């Protein structure tokens, strides 16, 4: 007989842990969290640096501390944490098929499902660097795992491609462990990493950051021996004559993350090509009723605190769905959110007005760096609200709050766009 749960959560990273706790707090009695890893915590286990929890716990924690607190909270709920178990399939009628060395193949069914599988790193293949294929090329996250969890160094002389936060954090980490980090190379004219990480991870250790540069060749027979770095022009094409050669044995790629959505796709859930995650409504429900999603599987987050907030929303909605107290307003008064000028994506992608309480929150990313600027919310062509910002960048998630009465008054779909503030 298949076991039945009120809410089943796939993934025990910060997203899955928070969703499970909140499902329990909102009335789900039987909750299960499943993870393929040997321990809960997801990516946070390898993020040993501090920088987590300033919003949620009002103190700065390391990744393992943040995960540890949530694991403790989950344990207190008496929910089941099933580790070492790979979820193979999630069906539209909310059955979960899984495999573990201990229990073999098993199937459970759930009143509601929360997908929280996180994301994986883009690899060299996804970036397409020409040159040899020697050993010594790692994604920054894989290197982070080797160094911080398994305890072995991946190299001595390192060049980092990409200036996202993981790359910056690893520049400092490798330096502390005695490696020489020769350069951090970023193709864009700005870094997507946090300013604080540029200061405390690069500048503290005198590591140069080359903006508008990229690695154009990796040399070496068995192991990386050198890389060629070149400046790029405005269309990101390498500029001849700007070549620099760095003698190094290791290249770390910090070139972005992609939501991990094989299960989502197989379940027939609609995927948004912009976020590469499931299309979600205001309460994080996907296009399959009773299946919710949260965290990096939906869109890549920079701050775990936002992951937690989003996941609590998903957990609450999942509990309500499982207890049949959801509004079940599936297609009632659906307000699609259209990405206007300079908006790369939004989450949620649409809002069911009747399902919102007092307001709806919309998260989004801008396409480029902005100084003093305005976020405009429009109902078709009609302006509804303007939100001022002093600074926005693609690497920083933005969000706005739309009051319910404004949603009710809107006739058509909502458009969010961003522009520079007009100087008086």
């Amino acid at each position, binding site marked *: 007989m298949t076991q039945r749960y009120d809410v089943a959560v796939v993934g025990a990273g910060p997203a899955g842990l928070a969703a499970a706790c909140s499902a329990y707090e909102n009335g789900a009695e039987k909750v299960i969290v499943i993870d393929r890893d*040997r321990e809960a915590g997801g990516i946070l286990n390898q993020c040993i640096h501090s920088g987590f929890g300033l919003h949620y716990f009002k103190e700065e924690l390391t990744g*393992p501390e943040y995960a540890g607190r949530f694991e403790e909270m989950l344990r207190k709920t008496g929910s089941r944490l099933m580790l070492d178990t790979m979820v193979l399939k999630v069906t539209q009628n909310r059955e979960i098929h899984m495999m573990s060395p201990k229990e073999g193949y098993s199937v459970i069914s759930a009143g509601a499902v929360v997908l929280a599988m996180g994301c994986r790193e883009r690899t060299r293949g996804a970036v397409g660097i020409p040159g040899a294929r020697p050993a010594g090329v790692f994604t920054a996250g894989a290197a982070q795992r080797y160094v911080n969890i*398994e*305890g072995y160094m991946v190299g001595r002389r390192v060049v980092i491609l990409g200036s996202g936060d993981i790359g910056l954090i690893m520049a400092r980490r490798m330096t*502390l462990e005695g490696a020489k980090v020769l350069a951090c190379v970023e193709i864009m004219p700005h*870094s997507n990493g946090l300013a*604080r990480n540029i*200061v405390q991870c690069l500048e503290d250790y005198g590591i140069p950051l080359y903006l508008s540069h990229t690695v154009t060749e990796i040399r070496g027979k068995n192991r990386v021996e050198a890389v060629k770095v070149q400046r790029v022009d405005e269309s990101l094409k390498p500029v001849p004559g700007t070549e620099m050669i760095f003698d190094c044995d290791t290249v770390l790629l910090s070139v972005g993350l992609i939501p991990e959505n094989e299960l989502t796709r197989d379940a027939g859930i609609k995927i948004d090509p912009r976020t590469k995650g499931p299309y979600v409504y205001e309460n994080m429900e996907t296009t399959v009723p009773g299946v919710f999603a949260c965290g990096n599987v939906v869109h890549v987050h920079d701050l775990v605190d936002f992951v937690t907030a989003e996941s609590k929303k998903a957990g609450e909605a999942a509990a309500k769905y499982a207890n049949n107290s959801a509004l079940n307003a599936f297609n009632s008064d659906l307000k699609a959110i259209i990405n206007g000028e300079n908006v790369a994506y939004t989450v949620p992608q649409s809002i069911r007005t009747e399902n919102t309480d007092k307001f709806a929150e919309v998260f989004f990313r801008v396409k480029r760096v902005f100084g003093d600027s305005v976020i405009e919310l429009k109902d078709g062509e009609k302006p509804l609200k303007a939100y001022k910002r002093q*600074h926005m960048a693609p*690497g920083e998630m933005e969000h706005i709050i739309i009051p319910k009465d404004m949603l009710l008054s809107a006739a058509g779909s909502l458009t969010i766009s961003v522009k520079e503030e007009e100087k008086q």
Partner: protein
Amino acid sequence: MKKLELERNKAPENENRAVKELICIMCPKGCRLKVEEGGGYAVTGNACPKGAEYGRKEVTNPTRVLTSTVKITGAIHSCCPVKTDRDIPKQLVLKAMDVLSGVVLKAPVRRGEVVVSNILGTGANLIATRDMEAAE
């Protein structure tokens, strides 16, 4: 949250006015601070009091919280993450790493447990940042 753009590569124009421009690292917002050197070390540009404290410290005695790992035996992994429970002088960070390289813990270890007390006489303790159970 503010990010760095190209403008950080500009030459500092106010060297002689003895105002130091810094980026606060106390939270992800990354405020751009101006600190008057000498005198009262007045700080401007900070969105909260933590920034004023950071600015003052950064020009007088810069400090950092160190996060790293130490070896552990008998656990499921061979490393245990640790941190200093308060900031230590920046110039002692690499020396502290030398101390860490000589430490070997034995599982089980509890989150918050002191691994090295008063590291390098800084008054900061090195503490474990996660539980490490003894592996069966």
